């Protein structure tokens, strides 16, 4: 893959076609992506830095931030493990119903997050399938931390798996086979051969998963119970602030989330660039003997 080489004139689009298209694309990006982002930060700091800090420092806000981080800290590693396991299953084994499994992995993307939340209420709620069983043992799943984590795990589940599956398929499993013939145990093979190979892709998936986990609204809203200072995550807290006519505070918390989004984007870009570079290095075969 060569960089910095101009395309020959015959393959370039005419300027009257390229320029308008580029302008339209830029305008679209500016309007739908850039403007809202600028607006969020603008409104957040509209009344000055002090108001911003007060809004973030409010006990309910701090608790919301803490809860969001806690939920992400549980969901992301869980999905890391599930994602690797699912990707391993799909790319290394042949079995009947594999196509169905792949569709199931994608299910959370197809389903509205609100439905996801509702499903957990139907399962673990007082009148749900497991409701009585849980009530007898005084175990609280929904309207408490476990429910929020479950809902978040559900909606972010496909992210790591979908990142790994094409990567592992493209990389093939010959290196793993070689490792087996050399005497490596299953775990050693995974740890020393597979993990280094998928490392960057895994990191990419984790970062995306984290961003999604922290920003999830619909599913969490259904299972949260909205107990202030206890079961409100940052996105939920933003909604509350907004409904209480505290726009600036709402935007302040939203600015934090937007900041997270920006950081995620930057990291994503850096890693994506790194992956592209590694694959181009590998695919270049020299002709010299």
């Amino acid at each position, binding site marked *: 893959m060569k960089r910095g080489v101009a395309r020959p004139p015959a393959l370039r689009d005419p300027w009257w076609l390229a320029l308008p298209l580029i302008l339209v694309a830029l305008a679209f990006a500016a309007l739908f992506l850039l403007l809202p982002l600028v607006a969020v930060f603008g409104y957040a700091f509209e009344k000055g830095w002090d108001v911003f800090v007060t809004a973030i420092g409010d006990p309910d806000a701090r608790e919301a931030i803490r809860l969001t981080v806690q939920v992400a800290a549980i969901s992301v590693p869980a999905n890391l493990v599930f994602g690797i396991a699912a990707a391993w299953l799909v790319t290394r084994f042949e079995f009947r119903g594999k196509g169905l499994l792949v569709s199931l992995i994608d299910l959370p993307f197809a389903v509205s997050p609100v439905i996801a939340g509702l499903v957990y209420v139907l399962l673990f709620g007082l009148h749900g399938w497991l409701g009585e069983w849980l009530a007898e043992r005084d175990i609280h799943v929904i309207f408490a931390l476990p429910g929020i984590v479950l809902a978040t795990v559900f909606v972010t589940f496909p992210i790591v798996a979908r990142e790994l599956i094409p990567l592992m398929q493209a990389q093939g499993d010959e*290196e793993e086979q*070689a*490792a*087996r*013939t*050399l005497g490596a145990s299953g775990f050693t093979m995974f740890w020393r051969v597979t993990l280094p190979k998928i490392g960057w892709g895994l990191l990419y998936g984790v970062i995306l998963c984290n961003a999604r986990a922290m920003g999830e609204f619909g599913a969490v809203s259904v299972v949260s119970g909205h107990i202030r200072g206890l079961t409100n995550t940052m996105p939920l807290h933003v909604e509350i602030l907004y409904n209480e006519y505290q726009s600036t505070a709402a935007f302040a918390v939203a600015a934090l989330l937007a900041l997270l989004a920006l950081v995620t984007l930057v990291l994503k870009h850096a890693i994506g660039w790194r992956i592209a570079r590694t694959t181009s290095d590998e695919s270049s075969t*020299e*002709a010299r003997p």
Partner: protein
Amino acid sequence: MSIEALDIEHRYGRTVALDKVSLGVRSGELLALLGPSGCGKTTLLRVIAGLEFPVAGRVRFEGRDVSRLGARERHVGFMFQHYALFRHLTVFENVAFGLRVRPFWRRPKRAVIAAKVNELLELVQLGGLAARYPAQLSGGQRQRVALARALAVQPEILLLDEPFGALDARVRGELRRWLRGLHDRIHVTSVFVTHDQEEAFELADRIAVMSAGRIEQLADPETLYTKPASPFVCRFLGEVNELPFALHAAFTRSRDERSTAFVRPHDLAFERLDADGALAISSVRDLGPGVRIEARHASLARPIVASYARERHAAEPLRVGDRVALAPRHWVMFGDEAGHS
């Protein structure tokens, strides 16, 4: 260590990959599995390695049944067509891998591993490249690293899956000779897979010619070439003229009208006829090392080919249009009678 594969059956979905195949490899020999793509040679190799498990049949190493063991327990060295080097490890670390992943009670000390690795790298003539990464090596170098890596764990069986398939012609030739030399020194029982007849002939002590999941013939190169067991083997091992009864009766004196005589181009000569004949020279091409002469017969769709050495043709040159008769030196008969001349 000898290898025995007995009545191996293997399928991919509905397709039969191996159809009750049996193979015996003698200890210390270099055997080739030769055949067109899809004939099952790679499958057979992987079954021996323990990378695939057959539907039926058994595999034995030196008499011991290893059928239930996986690749890890069989202690075979395996070389992949595309090297399968660990791309994130250096050459040194690649070769050392097999020794490093041993459980700690069997693992050699670091100094011992280093010595072994360097010794092997010298053996494959890559001494100065220990710190390089696979991406920085050429194809031929990578394959040699793969070999060193496989040998590091001192396997008693070495299996190679089209080891030179991904290399260009010149490198291939060099590596072939080099591998043969290596094998002469370290007599590891080796089986390798190839679709290149020339490669099999150059390297192997014996060759198993395979087709459609079966071994057609297992023999040394000379026997295969001069006494092929079936038309398939005959055709696969090189260009051959297939002459029907009408054309071969003259020199084979056969009575079987359904038989076919197989004659190699270099075993065939054309005798000029002064009179008219059904067979006429259609092309004379100077190929450099030799001369390729084609003759056409009304009843045949394809021309009959003879290849002459330069001097021989110069002595008695033929021209397009000359009427000729066939004068083969050696042929093989198939049909109802599978005899030899």
